[in-house]
């Protein structure tokens, strides 16, 4: 595939082999709704969507990301405007399908890791490309009511 025009971003290891520090806590960055427009109720669009034109909804199937807070059947918001980097939960293209995994980028190697030790990592071999479709910013789960 000619990577430059594909729908996914190609991610390669940092040239210096640098290791970005894993974040110790999850920092949510909420959008900044205009504060002085003075009208209206709190709008979830403002809260959950930072880049409206780049944000897409997907449904997650499978439980391997449960320990990362994403359960089978959850809706996730996927933001394509964010550059994928270490420790992001991403939607990657694997064998022409969409897969939800954590992107781990250490010591010049990149892996897609499930939040489940029983699921083997997908190691991105040197010379191959990892296609990241977008970065997961939020998970929406419905509770039984």
């Amino acid at each position: 595939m000619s990577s430059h025009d594909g729908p996914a971003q190609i991610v390669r290891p940092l040239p210096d082999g640098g290791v970005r520090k894993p974040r110790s806590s999850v920092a949510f960055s909420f959008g900044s709704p205009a504060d002085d427009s003075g009208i209206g109720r709190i709008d979830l669009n403002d809260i959950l969507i930072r880049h409206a034109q780049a944000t897409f909804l997907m449904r997650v199937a499978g439980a391997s990301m449960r320990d990362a807070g994403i359960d089978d059947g959850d809706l996730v918001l996927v933001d394509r405007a964010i550059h994928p980097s270490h420790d992001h939960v991403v939607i990657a293209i694997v064998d022409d399908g969409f897969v939800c995994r954590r992107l781990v980028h250490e010591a010049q190697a990149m892996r897609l890791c499930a939040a489940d030790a029983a699921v083997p990592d997908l190691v991105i071999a040197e010379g191959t490309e990892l296609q990241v479709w977008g970065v997961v910013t939020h998970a929406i789960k419905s509770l039984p009511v």
Partner: protein
Amino acid sequence: MLALVDVNNMYVSCERVFRPALVGRPVVVLSHNDGVCVARSNEAKDLGVEMAQPWFQVRHLQRQAGLVALSANFELYGDMSNRMMTLAAGYAPRQEIYSIDECFLDFAGVRGSLSRRGRELRAQVLQWTGLPTSVGFAATKTLAKLANHVAKMADRKPGSYPRELAQVCNFAELSPARLEAVMRATDVGAVWGIGRKTRARLLEGGLRSVFDVMRADPVALRRQFSVVLERTLRELRGEPCLGVDEAPDANQSIMCSRSFGEPVLGLASLVESVNGFAARVAEKLRSQRSVAGALQVFLSTSPFRKQDRQHSPSATLRLTPPTADTRLLAAAATRVLESMFRPGHRYVKAGVVLVDLQPQARAAETPDLFGDVTPEPAARRDRARLMLAMDALNQRFGQGAVDVASAARQLRHHAAAAKQDQRSPRYTTRLDEVITACA
């Protein structure tokens, strides 16, 4: 300076964003009850599939060459178009949306390297939406369209033009000698507004390349051809002749949009505007004896007013059966508008786009052209007469002389949907059809 931004093979590119397996394969998108190819990937073009070619003529390529055919998914294309257009609008002071996949940007008063801006725009649209675009810069619309053509061909067929013109091509940055070389290498048929017949006649007269036409005598061209061709020539020479909304009609969509002088906050005045747009596009539609299978409405706040809440929605409604009836189109537009309007936003632009255009004759074959609103053939005839009378009055007394009172109740939904067996999910407009990601 103007730019024309255009999505490469729009419908196919939209499908590929959500179906990576289609990347690199020959793909066509079908419309009109899956009867006609309305979009082709580069691979399908290389197989010889022509624009608007009937499907049965190329069906054999499915087995022979792995050609993939998809039914048109206008909800998806409308939403992806809106994302692209909204991003493009942030790059220039003025945007004129020309069709579902093209817009002109007016960079008047903007300093700095426009090519670089063009590349940034292209990169942002590609990253944010997954859609590949081409950008052509030049002094007039006709030239910008031609620069866009060069940008696209240089990318698609290496060797056709210098490689650095690929994807983003700015005629204003080329030396006269290099520009001449480009014009010599470009067939007159690539010029906006020069159709097959005109091209054939130009060839008879020995005018083969754009360069040949540019050297022709404008007065002679007008005498032999038309005022339109003379205007095209003046545009090619860098003299702007096409104002806002004065471009040749796009092939596959009809649109009408306007930037408002003052931001609009209220639904009522938006409904009024959108009804006016619907009346305009309906008239254009009937003048080319077509009907539309889907209608898109978009709204936009100003990307330059950072202090404002931003909201630039769009939505597409399928029209089953396809129609050219002003009342139905206005009612559809109103309904779409009402569904996406959010109070408290300062809207500066709105528009109505008709897509899935098909010849009226074809649609007339389907039994209930106007659905159960007017089931009797006589009433149907009356409806057609009413529309003709409206068009005549508007032409005589000016646009909007006769208008349609908002008639949302006229709109009916029909179960009898068009044939579209291979339609992909509506990934971005239906919650139950979003992509599933495996975890």
